């Protein structure tokens, strides 16, 4: 239950390295916000500054309207789940969960009741007497969550909480975290490098790169309207195909000319491209694998080449095609088996094409 505002926050480490650059972010009460980005982009640093574990070099942090830059972590009333769980090895599960309440001098009987409540909701009742060393990864994860939940904190911070679990458990815990969020009705800030995790959990996703925020949006918009080539490539698997093209005007239509063909832009995109003065210039095109289709006749072929790898995933197949424009990946549900080296002609759904400025890599068609 907290509103958290980051205003032009910068973190410069002792060695002079700027890990977070001028980050501004508004997190509303009860929002589930995800920080996502490749490893080393400053997600943990941002989270740790909110927690108070790392000094803020520049900018302001407000929690519920109060400036918190100089408030010690234990006075921020924020709970954090660490990547490696950070359970106290010399304490039992019970003591681990109860520790924050003990510090707050809550009466023993109430602590006992709350610990059992939390343990029950997380399926930990049988394990209360164990030491962390005797728990599996998934159980440790639950204890770490229990330790956070029991406090009823203003906000939950989670730093890659699932990255140490195997894939199956990760999927399961993901559902549980979503469920937890619904139940607790508290502000969540969740850090992950895994865009799938971000897309399935988040309502508001913050994409970061090199210490800077690239885009803040909901999953649908991130997928459909990435603001730049980085976001376009980072969100979605398999990743978006990028190709070189030239923007041209033919018979009153704006087209992208590729090595092997042309893509006719719809009215909206055409208008944007004209407006930006892109006619006659080189651009970078982008198309997601699921928007690459088989070319029915020679007419609308955009890429042609040979099948390199064919992966059948059940209801759909991923086909890697070696084309004149480089490797193009297609994700199709019209499953038809290909062999390595088969010739193939590809087209694209023109409405789904993204166009980027080759210099700044910003999207020019949004």
């Amino acid at each position, binding site marked *: 239950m907290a509103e958290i505002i980051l205003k032009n926050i910068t973190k410069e480490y002792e060695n002079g390295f700027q890990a977070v650059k001028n980050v501004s972010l508004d997190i509303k009460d009860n929002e589930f916000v995800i920080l996502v980005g490749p490893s080393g982009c400053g997600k943990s640093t941002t989270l740790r500054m909110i927690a108070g574990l790392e000094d803020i070099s520049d900018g302001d942090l407000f929690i519920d309207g109060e400036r918190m830059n100089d408030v010690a972590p234990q006075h921020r009333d924020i709970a954090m789940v660490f990547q490696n769980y950070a359970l*106290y090895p010399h304490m039992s599960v019970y003591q681990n969960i109860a520790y924050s309440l003990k510090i707050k001098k809550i009466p023993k009987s109430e602590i006992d009741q709350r610990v059992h409540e939390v343990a029950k909701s997380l399926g930990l009742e049988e394990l209360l007497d164990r030491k962390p060393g005797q728990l599996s990864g998934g159980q440790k994860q639950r204890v770490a969550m229990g330790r956070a939940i029991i406090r009823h904190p203003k906000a939950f911070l989670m730093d890659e909480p699932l990255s140490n679990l195997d894939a199956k458990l990760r999927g399961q815990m993901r559902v549980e975290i979503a469920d937890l969020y619904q139940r607790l009705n508290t502000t969540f800030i969740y850090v992950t490098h895994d865009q799938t995790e971000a897309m399935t959990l988040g309502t508001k996703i913050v994409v970061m790169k090199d210490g800077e925020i690239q885009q803040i949006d909901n999953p649908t918009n991130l997928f459909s309207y990435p603001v730049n080539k980085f976001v376009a490539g980072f969100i979605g698997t398999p990743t978006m195909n990028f190709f070189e093209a030239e923007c041209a005007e033919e018979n009153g239509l704006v087209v992208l000319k590729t090595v092997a063909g042309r893509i006719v832009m719809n009215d909206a995109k055409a208008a944007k491209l004209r407006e930006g003065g892109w006619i006659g210039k080189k651009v970078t095109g982008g198309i997601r694998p699921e928007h690459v289709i088989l070319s029915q006749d020679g007419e609308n072929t955009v890429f042609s080449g040979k099948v390199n790898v064919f992966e059948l995933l059940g209801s759909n197949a991923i086909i890697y095609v070696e084309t004149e424009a480089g490797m193009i990946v297609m994700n199709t549900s019209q499953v038809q088996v290909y062999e390595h080296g088969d010739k193939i002609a590809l087209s694209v759904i023109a409405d789904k094409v993204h166009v980027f400025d080759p210099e700044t890599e910003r999207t020019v068609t949004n």
Partner: protein
Amino acid sequence: MNTRYSDKSPLYLRIPGIVGKILILAAASVFTAFPFVWMVVSSLKTKADILNTDIFFPSEPQWGNITGILFNSPIPKYILNSAWVSLVIVALQIVSGAMLAYALVFLKFRTRKILFAIVMATYMLPVAATYIPSYIILANWGILDSFLGLIVSSTVSIFGIFLLRQGFMQIPKGLVEAARMDGASHWRALWEIVCPMTKSSFITFGLMNFIGTYNNYMWPSLITKTSDYFLVSQGLRAFFVRDGAYGTEWALVMAASAVVVIPLLILFAFTQKWFINGIGGETGMKG
């Protein structure tokens, strides 16, 4: 040292090595233990027996030597002095050492490296070089020749800071951070999270410094001259020179020495497991 399971070569090839090892260890043990045994044996002799080099064991055990020391000498008082002064000093050293080590390991502040360099430099300074300045400070404060002076001049142990720092560095920083997020102050994090995880470092620290302080001779003898404030080593010496060089009651000196060691032996017996762990660098964190 545990060659039993790791060594794959057949037993007959290993025998010379094992025998060699046993011989070396036995020789080392004899050299270390002999003075101690000699002291104990001599404490039960008469003065004449001690000076007679032909016999090792007393012709007749003189239990009176021991009881004399226990009930009819100032030695028990010195033991008590030594014990409680050492206890207070070690307690203070543990608190100050733990706080400094915690700051050096877990806190980020601009002067951390400088602070560590200063601590390091202090460690390299010969103790004797500090005697005169320390003496002057105590004199200025008017606490020479007092228990307070003895205690105040030993509240910080650089060795202890090093030992604890070494132990603390084994602890993942995340644990302290988790405690901070749970609402713990640095003080609580130190005593409730860090300390229990480095128990053996603390016990080693406490024990080594307790023994050191208990036995300390040089510094206490510089700053105290009233026998009321004597620690054991000083007390023993006073006892030793009481009757002049030729009148020394060797048997009584030996009996007194033996009595003085008893508290340390008891202490060591109880903490042996931790003591050895701590020196070996284990944090007792297993399991």
